[in-house]
Structures are given as C-alpha cells and as structure tokens.
C-alpha cells in the first residue's frame, strides 16, 4: 500500500490534470466568446491555485499540530521517566559493555561517587574484589543473551572504602537502539547486619549452650562422684551400725550371762555356808563361825554389786521413753522400798508438798530417788539420827528435786568423783556400798534428758538435786 503522503500527491496530480484538461474543454463548449473564455480560464486557474493553497495549508497545519503534540508527549514522558529514576528508592545502573552509561541518584548515593566519576567507570569496579570476576563474566554474557535476569546479593565498596550490601537484579535491555546491561539494586546492609547479629547471637547462644552443657556434665559427674561417696559412706555407716549392734548384742549376751550364771555360784556359796553354820554349828569354834559369817557377807555383797552393775549397764542399753510422771507418788514408792533401812536407822524423812509432775521414765526415777535417799540415810556420823528433807522447785520449764541430809557431807574436791562408777570415799567397813549408786543417779538422769549434782560442805550435810523437764501444762 502506498503511504498517505504519496496518495495525497497522486490524488492531487490526478485532480490537477483533470481540471486542466476538463476546464479548457468545458469552457470551449460553454463559452463562445474567446475573450470571456480567456478570462474565465484565468479565473479558473486562480481558483485552482487558491483551493490548492487552502488544502496545502490545512494539511500542513494538521501535520504540524500532530508533530507538536508528539513532541509534547515525548517531553512529558521523559520528565516522568526522569522523575521516576530520580525519586525511586532503587538504584539503577545501566552499562554498555561494562562501562556505565546511566546512573540514577540512588545509585550515586549508594556508591558514594559523583555521576561524572561513575560514567567513566566499569560496573565491576564498584563491586567488592571477591565478586568482581563473577560480575564481569555474568554481565558481559548477559549482554549477548546468555542467561536471563538474575537476582543476587552483592557486596560493593563505596568511594569512602566502606562495604555495603546490595540486593541486585541484573538483566539486559534495549536502550537507545543497542543492548545495555541493567542492574537495579537496593540496600540490604541493615538486613545483613541484623542477620549477622542474629548469627552472632545464635553462635553465642550455641557456644553458651555447649559451655553450660559441659558445666552440667561436669556437675553431673561431680554429683555422681558425690553419690558414690555418699553410698560408700552409707555402707561404711551401715557397717559401723552393724558392728555397734554386734557389740550391743555381745553386751546383752554378757549381761544375760552375768545375770544368770555369775549369781549361781554365789547362791551356792551363801546357801551352803549358811547350811554349814546351821548343821555344823557344834563343830565350829567362834573363829570358824566368824569366817563362815564373813563368807556369807561377802557373797551377799557380791550379789548386790552384780545387781547394781546390771542396773547401771541396763540404763545405758535400754530405751527410756519419757512420759509424764507424778513426782509425789514416785517419791512415796522410793520411800516404801527403803522402809527397812529407814526403820533400822530411825530416819526422819519429810517431804514438802506439793511436788509437780515431771517428764521422765518412772522406774528409772524411782531407782534414782531410792539411791539418793539411801545415801542420805546411810552417810551420817555415828549416833546421828538421819533427817532427810525433800522438796521441789520449778523454774522455766524445769523441775529441780532437792534431797537434803544432815550427813557427813562431801569435800569439795571429791564433788565430781562421787558420780563415777566404783568411786568410793569411805571404807566398806564404815559405810557399806558398791560405789555405783550415784553413777546410776547421774546416768539415769542424763538418759532421761535431765541432770544431777550436789551442793555440799564437808561435815555440814549434802543437798543433792536432780532436774527434769516439767510436764507440759503441769
């Protein structure tokens, strides 16, 4: 098809030829007057020229307007494009064969170079050295159509020698009639730093987890070691306990044997000596009688000794579970057990009531009070009537029971000795006894959670006291 300008030209040519040919012929037929005909011909030519000029004018004006409009549209588009490239938050680099040919303000801002500097640089000169080869290779390849658009993270070095991370999208486009490389980029330095921070934190966390795990393992090992030690200690303890139980059992067996077997010969000695005294009295002179009497007395003394020792050892062995004890009744029971001794010595025992209830083991307490009273009656100067006073005083949550006598007293230097087993201050002839009575008193009180002691002056009597917890609410 022919173009519109050519068509117009051809149409005009045809129209002009037709008008030249037809107008002359028409005039020759219509107008006879050659003068008029000549004038009309001139008029016709003028009219044709006028119409031609008008048409030309109209056509040119339309063309001009169209061209003007196109220029305006182009300018508008260019302004928009510039505005777009200059305000967009993405950096745009265009390069031709590597050489930068277009950069936008963001690209300038990212790189730190001026536009003029950039437009003299190769694209890869902006990139951190380790990426330069790769970027060069790929950009050039892309210009020849190899590989499509690609997106990757790149480290660039600014003019100020600072590293900056960009996420780059690379492509190739047609620009001003030739293929150019396009790289759009935005800054991901912050994100990278955050990622790095997270990685550091993660690493740190991981390291700390490893460290803490190691610590825990060490602690566990320590614990296992401790448990092992404890187990060993426990075993040792158990062994000790078994040994202790074994020696307690042995002690029990010993006491049992003493209780049963040791006294049997005594009974024989005592019994048969007495039989001798009775059945063979006629054959024994006074000296023989005296010897026999001494044998009987010694056997009796040994029996008492054995019984006291058993009582003392039983105090150490048996469990004395404390209960509320009526002290008045306990003192009365002890007094009644000593009735024979009391009447023999015509002793005067005065109990100053009331006696509060205490917390203790009744049978042991009876034994303790019996021993104290017995001593009080026994240890008097010859010819003195024993006078014993018993009273109690409460203080705090304790009760102290006093047993006061008018006896021979105890020298201060012997005050502690008398509470030990087998300690005696006097010859057996003067004051008979086993030397165990006061040891039983102290041991018994201690086993009940109480205590015992004496206040005394030589020759001025003694005041023994025993102390126990008071019954709760009593």
């Amino acid at each position, binding site marked *: 098809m022919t173009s519109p300008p050519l068509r117009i030209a051809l149409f005009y040519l045809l129209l002009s030829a037709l008008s030249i040919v037809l107008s002359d012929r028409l005039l020759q037929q219509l107008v006879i007057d050659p003068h008029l005909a000549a004038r009309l011909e001139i008029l016709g030519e003028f009219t044709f020229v006028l119409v031609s000029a008008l048409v030309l004018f109209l056509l040119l004006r339309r063309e001009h307007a169209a061209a003007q409009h196109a220029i305006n549209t182009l300018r508008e588009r260019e302004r928009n494009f510039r505005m777009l490239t200059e305000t967009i938050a993405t950096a745009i680099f265009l390069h031709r064969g590597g050489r930068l040919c277009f950069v936008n303000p963001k690209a300038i801002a990212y790189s730190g170079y001026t536009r003029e500097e950039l437009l003299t640089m190769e694209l890869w000169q902006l990139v951190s050295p380790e990426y330069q080869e790769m970027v060069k290779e790929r950009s050039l390849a892309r210009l020849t159509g190899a590989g499509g658009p690609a997106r990757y993270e790149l480290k660039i070095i600014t003019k100020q020698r600072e590293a900056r991370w960009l996420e780059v999208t690379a492509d190739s486009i047609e620009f001003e009639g030739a293929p150019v490389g396009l790289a759009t980029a935005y800054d991901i330095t912050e994100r990278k730093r955050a990622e790095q921070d997270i990685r550091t934190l993660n690493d740190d966390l991981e390291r700390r987890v490893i460290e803490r795990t190691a610590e825990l393992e060490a602690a566990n090992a320590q614990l296992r070691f401790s448990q092992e030690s404890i187990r060993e200690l426990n075993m040792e303890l158990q062994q000790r306990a078994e040994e202790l139980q074994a020696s307690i059992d042995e002690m029990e067996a010993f006491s*049992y044997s003493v*209780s049963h077997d040791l*006294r049997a010969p005594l*009974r024989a000695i*005592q*019994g048969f000596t*007495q*039989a001798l005294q009775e059945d063979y009295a006629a054959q024994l002179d006074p000296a023989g009688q005296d010897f026999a009497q001494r044998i*009987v007395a010694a056997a009796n003394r040994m*029996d008492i000794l054995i019984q006291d020792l058993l009582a003392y050892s039983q105090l150490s062995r048996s469990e004395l579970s404390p209960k509320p004890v009526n002290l008045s009744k306990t003192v009365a029971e002890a007094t009644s057990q000593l009735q024979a001794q009391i009447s023999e010595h015509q002793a005067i025992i005065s109990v100053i009531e009331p006696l509060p209830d205490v917390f203790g083991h009744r049978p042991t307490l009876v034994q303790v009070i019996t021993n104290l009273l017995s001593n009080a009656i026994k240890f008097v100067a010859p010819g003195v009537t024993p006078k014993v006073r018993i009273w109690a005083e409460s203080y705090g949550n304790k009760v102290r029971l006093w047993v006061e006598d008018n006896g021979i007293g105890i020298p201060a230097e012997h005050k502690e000795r008398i509470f030990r087993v087998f300690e005696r201050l006097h010859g057996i002839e003067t004051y008979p006894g086993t030397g165990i009575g006061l040891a039983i008193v102290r041991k018994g009180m201690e086993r009940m959670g109480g205590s015992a002691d004496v206040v005394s002056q030589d020759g001025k009597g003694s005041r023994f006291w025993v102390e126990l917890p008071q019954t709760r609410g009593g």
Partner: protein
Amino acid sequence: MNVTLSTLLLVEDDPNDVMLFRRAKDKSNLANPLQVVDDGEAALAYLSGQGIYADRSLYPFPALMLLDLKLPRKSGLEVLEWLRQHPGIHRLPVVVLTSSKESVDVGRAYDLGANSYLVKPVAFDILLEMVKALGLYWFILNEKPDIHLSQGE
C-alpha cells in the same frame, strides 16, 4: 509320805540350786512331794508322760511347776510355750524361778503365760521365805484348775 498330796515339779539344771531348794523345802515343812527334772526336754517328757515318765503312779502329774529359764536342750520359755499350746494340761500353774531379772525375760515369760515370776535369791533365808510362801499360796490358798490328762497324753 501322804500320797494324796499334789506334786511339785522343779525344772532345774544346777544341782546346787536343787540341793538348796530341797533344804529350804524341808526347813519350811512343805510336805508335798518334789519331782526334779534337769533339762527342758525332760520337762516335756514328764508333762506328757512319755518314756520313763509314763508311769503316773511314780511320776504324778504336778499341781505346780517351778521352771528355770536357762536350761540345757530346751529353754524354760520353750517349755512354757509348748505347755500353753497343749490342750488338757495347758492350765498347769507355772512359776518361773530363775536368776534373771532382765526385763526382756520377765516380759517374755508373762507373754507366754507364766503365772508368777520369782528371782532366785542369793541369801538362803530369803529362799526359805520364798518356799514357805509358795507352799502356802499355791498348794493351800490357790484354787486349782481342771487338768485333763487323757487329752494331754
């Protein structure tokens, strides 16, 4: 000897103690016949009328048994336990007469059904008193239980 009087059975292994007991019994004028066995198994045989004790005219079933605890072959506590589980004769009054004052022994003896518990005294005079009291209490004052020998033998 008056055969109608009931028998006293003494289970005691120490010959000295047996002699002293006989002396005390004689001195206290306790007329009841005394039978003595010297170990726990003999005591069981006597009570059940077995072996040499089968003849009840020679070895009458006792009205009271005095029982030592420490005995050869079978302890006094074993004898007591056996007796109390033996139908017919299980009511026989038993008085423990021993050396031990240990509370475990005393408690165990009562648990197993002892009627009384006495500790052998060292002084002979006290033994004498004890035998007198035993005779008075167990043979005169005390009401005797029914014993069914057929079941016990």
